[in-house]
């Protein structure tokens, strides 16, 4: 529908990340992404929305070149980060260039302490111990809970604590762009707001760009500037976040507000309301 053709080269400078019409196949047979295109402007926050299994995680992994480890591969299209073909870069090259991913499902290093987890985030940095210490303190001010648990093995910390560790770890690499995969999952409401505030702050103060894959459409569209909606491997709708928020279909299916305000979960009717853009 709104899949844009590869952007003109003049625009490239504006876009820190460009995904052009990619296809991803798992295990040689399972076609998961069927031509996804999107772009993230330098200094922008872009949300990637969609139901379970739509392919958000896959898209993010394709961008940070992590598919390989899951027997998946990009078979068509191209991904440009800062103007360079991602396929030619190894994941650590990407991190060094400032693109880091916070993986879905936390993925902390279970046997390392929380602090060591954070420090691994600084692996690619070359700017000395002092700067790293400074950033560590910054992460601790963002997440005081982590400071309390700094010496515990990450594997034993609670789900939310692990999520904070994972986000903090990514921040430690001083990235230019962060790919956030479901950051709010399993976090207390208060913390969800805090994390998005941090995102906003980093974006505004340090110009970090974000691509967020989120289920919590409500919050995501509040903070993002632009949004894409994925459905079974295709982009079905994209636009300014504000416009999306106003869109009737988005309201109905993703925000849960019908004509008469928020619906109660208790009153969900026993009929299928599934209407799809595609199917």
């Amino acid at each position: 529908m709104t899949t844009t053709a590869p952007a003109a080269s003049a625009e490239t400078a504006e876009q820190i990340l460009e995904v052009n019409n990619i296809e991803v196949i798992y295990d040689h047979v399972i076609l998961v992404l069927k031509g996804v295109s999107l772009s993230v402007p330098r200094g922008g926050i872009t949300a990637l929305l969609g139901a379970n299994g739509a392919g958000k995680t896959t898209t993010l992994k394709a961008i940070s070149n992590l598919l390989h480890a899951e027997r998946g591969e990009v078979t068509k299209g191209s991904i440009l980060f800062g103007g360079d073909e991602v396929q030619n870069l190894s994941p650590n090259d990407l991190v060094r260039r400032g693109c880091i991913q916070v993986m879905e499902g936390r993925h902390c290093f279970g046997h390392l302490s929380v602090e060591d987890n954070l420090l691994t985030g600084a692996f690619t940095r070359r700017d000395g111990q002092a700067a790293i210490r400074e950033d560590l303190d910054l992460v601790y001010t963002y997440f005081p809970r982590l400071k309390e648990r700094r010496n515990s093995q990450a594997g034993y910390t609670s789900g939310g604590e692990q999520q904070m560790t994972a986000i903090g770890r990514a921040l430690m690499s001083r990235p230019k762009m962060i790919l956030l995969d479901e950051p709010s999952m399993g976090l207390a409401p208060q913390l969800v707001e805090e994390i998005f505030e941090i995102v906003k702050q980093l974006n505004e103060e340090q110009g970090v760009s974000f691509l967020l894959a989120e289920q919590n459409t409500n919050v995501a569209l509040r903070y993002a500037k632009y949004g894409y909606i994925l459905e079974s491997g295709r982009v079905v709708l994209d636009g300014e976040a504000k416009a999306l928020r106003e869109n009737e279909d988005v309201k109905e299916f993703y925000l849960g507000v019908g004509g008469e305000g928020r619906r109660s979960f208790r009153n969900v009717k026993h009929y299928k309301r599934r209407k799809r853009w595609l199917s």
Partner: protein
Amino acid sequence: MNPRPDPNQLTAPDDGIARGGVLLDVKNVSLSFGGVKAITDISLNVLKGEIRAIIGPNGAGKTSMLNVINGFYTPQEGTIIFRGKERRSMKPHQAVGQGIARTFQNVALFKGMSTLDNIMAGRSVRMKRNIGWQMLWRGPALREEIEHREKVEEIIDFLEIQYIRRTPVGKLPYGLQKRVELGRALAMEPTLLLLDEPMAGMNLEEKEDMSRFIIDVNQQRGTTIALIEHDMGVVMDLSDRVVVLDYGKKIADGPPDEVKNNQNVIDAYLGVPH
């Protein structure tokens, strides 16, 4: 708003506890790991037939509480009375035998098995035929298998996951995995169902589906439910009573509306009033 059906109209399983009686009573439980105090002197009860929510900030000890209830952790202090029987420690599989089933915060499905097998695994405790019959796959073994298969198919229909019956669950999207996990827990036909963040990582539509399943299970089967959830909307809409934990301590307990406006809860957890 639909009025809640009168609890007394539903037939309760015959364990002698009437609907509204105390099914589970946790008394003065404390649990710590080395230096970390996960739970400090908490008492709470769950009434038969209700939906009980446990909420609290991250690391408050909610999951640990469930772990204590189903025997995975043994508390250092305190006792648990379930269906009138008191105990401190027991093996998790014994808890299952007593009628406690649960789902997990990080999906704990059997990744290599199909949806059907996962749910069938939930019925393992109820299947009895020995290896001799199994080997032959005839007579009693086959009859038993089919009998349970029918029960499982009911659950599959109920959760609307027919189309993924044969898919290995490792390949399913997260939301469906959670649903399969619920199915597996239901297959155990529990008296008390413990749900640990059943709706984390779901979009609205899926949360609505999940809510409906939970309500249906509660109302149609009369299953008592204790649930942990971070989505306040869900908690407020579904639960009959809410207990709030913070740093391993209980800071509030009561009906949703009351808890929602409790200042301690707002400070520790909600941030802004909902």
